[in-house]
């Protein structure tokens, strides 16, 4: 199950890391296209090519300030070619489907389903599963018992082999966060790792504070 801890560490952020990468690459691409398109139109509209001697080809229609943005002739220039329609359809379909896939990817919260728990006494072919929600509730319940913790919210995300816990702790006013973090690691998180055999279950913890009655923080 384990090919060294290092491998476990590296995939510690799992699916969310992939989503971060995809989101950022695609956002960057869209940004580049917008930047390039807007820049080109602006250069044409303000006649910057000639004024600033940018050296862009002057015969481009987009470099002529009095030229229309997109004339009917330009729009229809490829319309009679055999390749135009299939290409346009395929291109637009790919773009739309890709965007849809991207959009759907943002919707799910990545909650892990059932997680396998190794039980040594049973045969090799039997499997014991634990609901990730039950796991999360157990951690949250135990975390709320820690001194200084007002509320705890826990979600277990990712896939079976690379689940990870997302913990959000709200501390009572005046509680130092560092000892609570250590207590969380030694207590609830250690217990759940021990109990489930998910020794590598990484955790992302976010600590916030309850606003005390007389707080004026800006």
């Amino acid at each position: 199950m384990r090919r060294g801890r290092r491998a476990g560490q590296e995939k510690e952020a799992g699916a969310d890391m992939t989503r971060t990468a995809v989101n950022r690459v695609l956002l960057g691409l869209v940004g580049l296209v917008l930047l390039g398109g807007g820049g080109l139109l602006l250069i044409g509209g303000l006649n910057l090519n000639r004024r600033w001697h940018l050296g862009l080809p002057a015969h481009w229609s987009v470099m002529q300030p009095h030229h229309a943005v997109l004339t009917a002739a330009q729009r229809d220039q490829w319309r009679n070619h055999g390749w135009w329609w299939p290409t346009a359809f395929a291109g637009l379909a790919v773009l739309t489907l890709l965007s849809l896939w991207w959009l759907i990817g943002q919707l799910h919260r990545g909650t892990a389903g059932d997680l396998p728990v190794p039980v040594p006494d049973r045969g090799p072919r039997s499997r014991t599963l634990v609901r990730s929600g039950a796991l999360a509730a157990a951690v949250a319940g135990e975390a709320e018992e820690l001194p200084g913790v007002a509320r705890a919210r826990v979600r277990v995300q990712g896939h079976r082999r690379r689940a990870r816990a997302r913990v959000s702790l709200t501390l009572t006013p005046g509680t130092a966060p560092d000892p609570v973090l250590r207590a969380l690691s030694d207590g609830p998180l250690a217990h759940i790792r021990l109990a489930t055999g998910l020794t590598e279950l990484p955790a992302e913890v976010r600590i916030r504070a309850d606003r005390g009655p007389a707080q004026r923080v800006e």
Partner: protein
Amino acid sequence: MTTAPAPGPAPLPALPTEAAEVGPGPLRPRRPWSTRRNAAALTALVLTGAGGALLYEEVYIHTGHTAHHWRTRITDALADHSLNNHWVIAGSAVGLVLGLWLLLLALTPGRRGVLPMTGVGTSGVRAVLERSAAGALLHRATLEVNGVKGARVKVGRRRAVIRAVVGFGAHEQAAEELTRHLSAERDRMGLVRPPVVKVKVRSSKS
């Protein structure tokens, strides 16, 4: 640029093997990069809508129908306005700025509201402290100092500015005392990059 230098999601550096033997060990304390979920969802929504509408219209025209009103309006507008038209220039500028903004979102870590914690003594845990929580702690600590009547605390990512109102006594002493006390309080938070504590003291108008 299209190969994308893989900004945030670069793999974590390999941990020393000694640490690998004893257990998961603390994860590298750095600020995890934001997923940019909202920006991605919004961009994807716009792209899906625009792409879908265009695709629909292309199919619609290709199957022998006349174009919808909205499409002829857009194509007419594009054909009737020259590049130096005010609206075209404004639109291009908006596109340019939007593109810059998206690039900025793609290349910066985000999550500016949290401070990464070292997580010393923990294993497999990556923790962040909200800046407002750090501010609340510092504010509370400020009020513990003798003679402080009130305070405004602003915690940035590199420095925490505390504007304290003191009722009596020498300002310099109060400022020193506050700096000492608040620095100690800050050090108890276990932050990777503890913000520099800056104290400004003024007396209450009475």
